[in-house]
C-alpha cells in the first residue's frame, strides 16, 4: 500500500455537473411519455394501463426505498466502509417523494384504482346493494323485531302471573318460577338492546347483507376501507420521504460544517426510524401489490419485496458509480475495494432474495391451501410457468449467484455493473410477474369469458416504464448535482478511503 489517504485532503468534495444533453433527454422522454400515457389513458384502456403505471412506479420506488435502506443500515450498523458511496444512497432515497407522487393517479382516480384493486368497486357495489336491501326491508324488519320484543315481554308478564297465581308455592316451585322469570327477562332485555331506530335498523341490515354477499370483504372491512386506505397512503408518504429527506439534509449540513454532531444524529435517528421504515414499506407493498388480489395473503410479502429492493438498489448504485467514474468523477475516492464490498453485498442479497422467494413458494406449495395456492397456480401454469423458471429461478438467482461467486468479477467495475444491470432487468421481471398476471383475469372477470392476458398491453408497460425511467433519471441527475458526490467532511472518511477487505 502506498501510504494512507488523508480524509482532510478531500474536504472540498466533488461537484457533479449535469450533462445537459442527458438531462434534456430524460426530461423529454419523461415529459412526453407522461403526456402520451395519460392522453392514451383517457379511454377504455385505462384499466389495463393502470397496471402498467403501477409496474413502472413500483420498480423505481423500490430502488429508491432500497437506497434509503442502505443509508439507514450504514448509519445504524456504524459502518465505515461505505462513507464514500453514502451520498449516492442518499440521493437515491431522496427520490422517494417524487415516485410516490407519480403514483397518485392510480391511487386517486377511480378508473385506474378500481381496475387495480378490485376491492374498491366490489366493496362499493356490495355496500350499494346492501343499502338498497336495507331500504326495502327496514320497515318490515323493525316491525318484526318489535313484535318479537312484545312477545318476549308478554312471556315475562305471563310468567310473573304464573308465580302470582300459585297460592302458596313450595320453596322449590318458587325457585323454579323465579329462575324462569329471570331467564325470560334477560332474553327480553337482550332483544330490547338492539337499536331499532331507522338508522340503527338500516345499519344492522346493511351489515347482514354485506356479510352474506361479500363475506371476505366484510371480514376485512376494518382494513379494506377507503378512509383507512388514505390514512395509510399518507403515512407511507410521510414516513418514507420524511426519513429520506431528513437523513440527506443532515448529511449535507455535515458537508458544510464538519460537525460530528450530525454524524451522531444520523446514527441515532437511523436506528430509531428503522421500525417505521419497515412498517411503511411492508404495508405499502401489502396495499399496492398484495391488494391486487384481496383474497390472497402471505406474511412473508413485505420481506420478499424488501429483499428485491435492497438487492437492486445496490445494483443501481454500482452502475451509477461506474458511470460517474467513467465520466471522471470519484476516481480517487472510490477504489476497487468498494466495488468488491458492494459486489459481496449484492451476492448476499441475491441469496437472501432467493431464500425468501423460495420459502414463500415452498410453504404455500406444500400446505396446498386453496386461498394461498391461487397466487402460484396462476404463475406456475401455462405461459407464466416458463417465465417463472427462466427469469426468476434461473435469471434472478442461479446466474447471478454463480457469477458473483467469482472474486474476479467483483473487482472489475464494468463486469460487476453488467451483472447489476442484469439483476435490475430480472427485478423488473420479478415485479412484472407479480403485477401482470393479475391484469387479464381482473379486467375480464365480469365478462364471463376470462382472459389470462390483455393483448397488446405490453406496449403500455414499456411506455410507462420508459416514462417513469425518464422522470427518475431527471430528478436523480438534479439530486446528484445538488451536493458533493460524497460526504466530504464526514468523520469516517479516512476509514472509507483506506478500506481494505
Amino acid at each position: 500500500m502506498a501510504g494512507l489517504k488523508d480524509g482532510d485532503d478531500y474536504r472540498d468534495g466533488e461537484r457533479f455537473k449535469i450533462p445537459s444533453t442527458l438531462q434534456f433527454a430524460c426530461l423529454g422522454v419523461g415529459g412526453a411519455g407522461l403526456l402520451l400515457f395519460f392522453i392514451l389513458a383517457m379511454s377504455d384502456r385505462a384499466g389495463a394501463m393502470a397496471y402498467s403505471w403501477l409496474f413502472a412506479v413500483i420498480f423505481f420506488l423500490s430502488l429508491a426505498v432500497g437506497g434509503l435502506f442502505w443509508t439507514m443500515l450504514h448509519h445504524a450498523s456504524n459502518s465505515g466502509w461505505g462513507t464514500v458511496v453514502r451520498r449516492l444512497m442518499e440521493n437515491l432515497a431522496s427520490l422517494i417523494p417524487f415516485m410516490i407522487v407519480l403514483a397518485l393517479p392510480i391511487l386517486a382516480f377511480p378508473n385506474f384504482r378500481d381496475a387495480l384493486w378490485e376491492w374498491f368497486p366490489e366493496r362499493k357495489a356490495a355496500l350499494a346493494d346492501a343499502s338498497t336491501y336495507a331500504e326495502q326491508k327496514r320497515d318490515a324488519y323493525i316491525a318484526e323485531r318489535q313484535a318479537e320484543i312484545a312477545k318476549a315481554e308478554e312471556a315475562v308478564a305471563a310468567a310473573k302471573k304464573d308465580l302470582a297465581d300459585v297460592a302458596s308455592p313450595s320453596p322449590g316451585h318458587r325457585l323454579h318460577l323465579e329462575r324462569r322469570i329471570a331467564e325470560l327477562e334477560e332474553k327480553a332485555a337482550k332483544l330490547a338492546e338492539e337499536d331499532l331506530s331507522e338508522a340503527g335498523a338500516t345499519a344492522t341490515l346493511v351489515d347482514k347483507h354485506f356479510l352474506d354477499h361479500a363475506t371476505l370483504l366484510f371480514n376485512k372491512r376494518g382494513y379494506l376501507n377507503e378512509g383507512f386506505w388514505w390514512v395509510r397512503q399518507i403515512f407511507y408518504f410521510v414516513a418514507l420521504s420524511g426519513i429520506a429527506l431528513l437523513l440527506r439534509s443532515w448529511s449535507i449540513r455535515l458537508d458544510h460544517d464538519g460537525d460530528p454532531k450530525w454524524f451522531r444524529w444520523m446514527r441515532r435517528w437511523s436506528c430509531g426510524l428503522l421500525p417505521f421504515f419497515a412498517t411503511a414499506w411492508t404495508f405499502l407493498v401489502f396495499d399496492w401489490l398484495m391488494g391486487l388480489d384481496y383474497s390472497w395473503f402471505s406474511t412473508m410479502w413485505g420481506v420478499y419485496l424488501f429483499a428485491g429492493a435492497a438487492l437492486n438498489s445496490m445494483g443501481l448504485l454500482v452502475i451509477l458509480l461506474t458511470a460517474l467514474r467513467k465520466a471522471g468523477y470519484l476516481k480517487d475516492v472510490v477504489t476497487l475495494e468498494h466495488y468488491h464490498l458492494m459486489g459481496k453485498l449484492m451476492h448476499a442479497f441475491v441469496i437472501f432474495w432467493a431464500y425468501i422467494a423460495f420459502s414463500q413458494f415452498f410453504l404455500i406449495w406444500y400446505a396446498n391451501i386453496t386461498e394461498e395456492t391461487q397466487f402460484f397456480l396462476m404463475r406456475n401454469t401455462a405461459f407464466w410457468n416458463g417465465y417463472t423458471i427462466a427469469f426468476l429461478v434461473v435469471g434472478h438467482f442461479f446466474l447471478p449467484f454463480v457469477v458473483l461467486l467469482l472474486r474476479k468479477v467483483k473487482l472489475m467495475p464494468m463486469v460487476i455493473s453488467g451483472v447489476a444491470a442484469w439483476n435490475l432487468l430480472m427485478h423488473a421481471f420479478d415485479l412484472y410477474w407479480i403485477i401482470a398476471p393479475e391484469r387479464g383475469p381482473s379486467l375480464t372477470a365480469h365478462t364471463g369469458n376470462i382472459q389470462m392476458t390483455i393483448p397488446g398491453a405490453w406496449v403500455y408497460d414499456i411506455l410507462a416504464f420508459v416514462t417513469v425511467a425518464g422522470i427518475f433519471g431527471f430528478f436523480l441527475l438534479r439530486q446528484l448535482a445538488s451536493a458533493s458526490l460524497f460526504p466530504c467532511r464526514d468523520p469516517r472518511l479516512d476509514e472509507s478511503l483506506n478500506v481494505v477487505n
Partner: protein
Amino acid sequence: MADTSSANVPVHPSEAEGVAREQLVLNNRSLGWITDRVCGIVENRQPLIWWVLFVPSVFGFLCLVFSLVYLVSTGVGVWGMNHPVAWGWDIVNFVFWIGIGHAGTLISAILFLTRQKWRTSVNRASEAMTIFAVMCAGIFPGFHVGRFWMVWFLAPIPNSNAIWQNFKSPLLWDVFAVSTYFTVSLIFWYIGLIPDLATLRDRAKGIAKKLYGFFAFGWRGGNRQWRHYEMAYLILAALSTPLVLSVHSVVSFDFATSVIPGWHTTIFPPYFVAGAIFGGFAMVLTLMLPVRKLYGLEDLITGKHIDNMAKIILLTGTIVGYAYIMELFISYYGANAFEADAFHMRILSGPYTWAYYCMFFCNVIAPQVFWFHYCRHNLWIVFIIANFVNFGMWFERFVIIPTSLARDFLPGQWGNYSASWVEKLLFGGSFGMFMMLFLLFLRFLPVIAIGEVKGVLPQSDPHYPEWKRLREKRRAAAN
C-alpha cells in the same frame, strides 16, 4: 442526549465522541499479556465458584441420564403427550436448544464475513455454546422417535425392507440439517482452536503438553500455513452462514409446511432464524457476563462488546416482534376462520393465553430498554434482560407448538397438555449437561480466541506506524 462538542473543540472530528472507533482491547495490552491472561484460566486452579457450579451441573447431567434410562425402559408414554398434542416439551426443548446454538454460528461466521472485529473476544465461547446446545437439542427428537434403538432408520442405508426415508418430509430434512450443522460447527470450532492449542502446548508441561500437542496437530504458525488456514476459515464461515439460516428454516418447515392454524405461515423461516439468533445472543450474554467477571476478562470483553450484543438483541427482538405482528395481522386479514380462531385463542381467550403474553413481554417489550445507553452498559440490567429473553424464547416455542395442536379443526379433537415430571426432569437435566460441558470447556480450553484477539490489536496491523503518524499529524494541527 445533549451534544456538547462542536466543531470548535480542538479534537479532529474523526476522534470525536461517538465517531472514534473504540478499542477492542482496553488498556493497550500487549500480545504477551493476552496469552498470559487467557492461558492462565486453564493453567491456574479454578476458583471455588467453578466447583460450586460444576457439582450441581454434574448432578443435573445424572438426572438427564436417569430420566432417559427411565424413558427408554418404560416407553414414551411417561411423557405427558397424547392426542391431539403429540408434540410437547420434547420438541419445544429441541427448538429451544437448537435456537440457542445459532448465536454461536452468527458470531463466528456472519460477523466474520461482515468483518466485525469485535467478534474475536466472544466467538470461541459462543461456538462452544453452539456445539453443546446442539448436543442438548439432539437428545430430544432422538428419544422422541419412541424406540431409540431404531434411530438408525433415519439414515438412508440399503435394507431388505426396501424402505427409504421419505425425503419429502420436513422431519427428515431436520435430520440432515441438524447433523450437518453439528458437524460443520464442530469443524469450524476445531479449526479455530488449533493455533490456540499450539499456544497452550508451548506453555504447558508434562502430560498436558503431550495432550495439547497432540490436538494442536503440530501447528507452526507459518504464513504458508496461515494463508490457507485463513482461506479455509473464510470458506467455513461462508458455508456456515447459509447453513445457519437453513437449519432454523428447516426447523420452521416442520411446522409451516403443515396446515395447522398457527403453524402455517410463510414468514416462519426468517422469523425462526431471527428468533434463534435473538435467543442465542441472550444465552451468550448469560454465560459470558459471569465468565468475564470471574476470570477478570474486562479488558478483552469490554463494554463495547456487551453494548453490541445488546444492540443485536434489540434488533432481532424487534424483528421477532415484526413477525408476531405480521402473524396477527394476516390472521385477521386472511379472514380464515381457523387461523383467526387460533390467534384469538392465543391472545384473547384460551388455556395458554398467559404463555403468549409471557412470550410477548419477554421477547418484544423487555429488550426495548436497550434503546437506552444506560441499560446497555449496566451489567445487571443486561443480565436480567438476557434472562428474560432466554425465558421468553422458550415460551415462544411453547406457544407455537402445543397451543396450536391443542385446538384442532374439530372441537371434538380438542385437548390440553401439561408436561409430566419426566419431561421436566429431562429439560432440567439438559441444562445440567449444557453447564457441565461449558464448565469443562472453561477448564481445559482457551475461552477466548487468543490468536484472533491478537490480530485485532491496533499494533498488529503492519501499517500501524502509518496510521499513528496520520493521527499525530492531526493532533498537532488541532492543537
